[in-house]
């Protein structure tokens, strides 16, 4: 079967035979960086278009359908427009922080692409603490949001940033605890190990009820962490006009926008990896014939299929639910989700120790 390993290995051998080891390593780093940026941009464009089409479909509209075939180039046209727009910096703003904030948010999103396994043998960095790395890096974006809100010198931005800070810090706890459930079952923090452990079935099926509870909490928590409706209090356009990015325009606004969509992709990819086996095809125990047929579908199709399925779910939330109020949001986390996920973690540990899972 064609594997991405063949391609990467071929490039690696070609580079090492023609160049010194140092240069080959440097060029490989550049290639990986370029690939990551290309993926970043492509995902941004695809997800923005997808959001608009999903929204249109739910709202009995057509959505973008003029630029390019079936409106596919609409987000490209929008990007060009945003690049050419003037990036205003409001008077009285802290210019340094104001200009740095979008990049902090974007770089945090970009770094998160590293440990995700996109397909069999296609992973930028398979570090042994992958899950911990993701939890750690995903907390950085809140600093960017706080910077943006504070530096804008705008009351709406400040309030949006404060809400966002409270929200992301709280929901990180539940998200972390529900991720831990799978770590307990797998016994490893390495993403490739977690995917490999699902060779006989995905954790959502193998892990009984605790895995399902963990998944539901995970989806709620990451929706809140990415500031998406019904938890979009940080931007809450009917209350705070646009929240923390009220004062941003042009490309700096686009970076926030892009980072939001990349964050959605990443959290859904993590959800797909932990609960739905990542690139692992749909396998049932030791039904070798069935599993073999499933293996014929390329692993990248499995990965992106699952991820986009979850992305669709999160978009569905956005276009259906009203927004929570800020105190209700924190109540939900501290009074319901956190206790439930703690009890759930104990349950998962019991399941893991007693080997009750399949």
């Amino acid at each position, binding site marked *: 079967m064609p594997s991405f390993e063949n391609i990467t290995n071929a490039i690696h051998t070609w580079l090492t035979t023609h160049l010194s080891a140092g240069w080959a390593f440097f060029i490989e780093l550049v290639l990986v960086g370029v690939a990551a940026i290309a993926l970043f941009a492509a995902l941004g464009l695809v997800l923005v278009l997808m959001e608009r089409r999903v929204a249109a479909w739910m709202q009995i509209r057509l959505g973008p359908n003029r630029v390019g075939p079936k409106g596919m180039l609409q987000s490209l046209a929008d990007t060009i427009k945003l690049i050419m727009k003037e990036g205003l910096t409001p008077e009285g703003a*802290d210019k340094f922080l104001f200009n740095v904030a979008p990049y902090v948010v974007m770089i945090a999103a970009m770094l998160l692409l590293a440990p995700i396994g996109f397909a069999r043998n296609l992973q930028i960095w398979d570090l042994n603490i992958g899950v911990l790395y993701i939890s750690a890096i995903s907390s950085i974006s809140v600093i960017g949001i706080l910077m943006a809100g504070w530096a804008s010198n705008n009351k*709406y931005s400040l309030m949006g940033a404060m809400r966002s800070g409270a929200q992301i810090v709280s929901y990180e706890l539940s998200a972390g605890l529900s991720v831990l459930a799978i770590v307990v079952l797998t016994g490893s923090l390495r993403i490739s190990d977690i995917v490999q452990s699902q060779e006989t079935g995905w954790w959502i099926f193998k892990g009984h009820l605790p895995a399902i509870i963990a998944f539901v909490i995970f989806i709620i928590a990451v929706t809140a962490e990415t500031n998406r409706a019904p938890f979009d209090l940080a931007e809450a356009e009917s209350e*705070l006009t646009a929240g923390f990015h009220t004062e941003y325009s042009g490309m700096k606004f686009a970076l926030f926008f892009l980072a939001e969509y990349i964050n959605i992709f990443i959290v859904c990819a993590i959800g797909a990896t932990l609960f739905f086996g990542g690139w692992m095809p749909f396998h049932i125990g030791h039904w070798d014939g069935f599993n073999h047929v499933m293996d014929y579908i390329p692993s990248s199709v499995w990965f992106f299929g699952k991820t986009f399925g979850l992305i669709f779910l999160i978009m569905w939330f956005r276009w*259906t639910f009203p*927004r929570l109020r800020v105190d*209700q949001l924190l109540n939900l986390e501290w009074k319901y989700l956190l206790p439930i996920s703690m009890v759930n973690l104990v349950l998962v540990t019991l399941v893991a120790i007693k080997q009750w899972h399949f």
Partner: protein
Amino acid sequence: MVEEIGTNEEGELVINMGPQHPATHGVLHLVVTLQGETIKKIEPHLGYIHRSIEKMCESLTYRQFSYVTSRMDYLSSHINNHACAMCVEKGLQVEVPPRAQVIRVMVDELTRIASHELWWGAMAMDLGAFTPFFHAFRERENINDIMEETCGARLTMNYIVPGGVMADIHPNFQKRVKSFIELFRSKIDEYDELVTGNIIFQNRMKGVGWISAEDVVSYGCTGPVARASGVHSDIRKLFPYEIYEKLQFNEILETGGDSFARYMVRMRELRESVHILEQLVDNIPEGEFQAKTKAVLKLPKGEFYQRVETARGELGVYIVSEGATTPYRIKFRSPGFANLSALDHIAAGGKLGDLVASMGTLDLVIPDIDR
């Protein structure tokens, strides 16, 4: 360094919501004093869309002035015209033909449905749910089509004139209203499924923006806002006009007094209006659609007052006549103005998100407040 963010002497944050703000649905300017997220005080500032309609009316004849009133509460333009026409008829002592009366009530109720639908969509959007807005507009479009055929306009209609209605109904009118009733009955259930039963929505609305029956009376709130606190205020029942006496319909009363009660009053009113339309659609009497009136109307010397129930509450038209072709003085008692005055009382003490919910359920139309 960032300069000191604007606070007042007590260290409270003062923000200007509006005149351009997504939640005020128009050019309303609220100066909101906040302590963190909690609202201390709300001060509405008016005047951004003042067109001196009352003064304009004084220089227009009795046939002309009602056209301006369509631009007041543009969501119930028929009902505004209706109030003006009835006030003039009171002065002229004209008997309106039965056919015209039925048509008037029917277009009034259609307007009420259209207005409530727009409110429903806009309020859901204030709470962060976008999709209901489009669903509401899909059905509202049907009403606009009916209006376009019969009245020739989709928003500012000017169909009801002193003496009756301007023109007879379009031959398709009854058929279209019937199919609309059938469609709308199923759609209201859909609205309930989408929004009313949603747990997030109920948590946002219940117990938020509470106002007691006494305060409703002292602030002069009318319409659904008053009825949600259990105050009888339906002009169609209290001071029946046209054929409302003969119709079977209920005055919708809720006792909650909070945003959810106001929401439920309007949702139930939608069903009630459909019920009224059902009674009338097959019973439009034959005959004249307009009474014979003189070309130039002159009201006798005196004062005339007429009130009607618009989608937002009680609209009063007060005409002082000196016997000339134009009124000496006109005063409108608009429902939105009185309802807005209670906003500080309703929303102070709540969170900023509650202000949006309360404002949504007051159903403010800014040109109606600021004539």
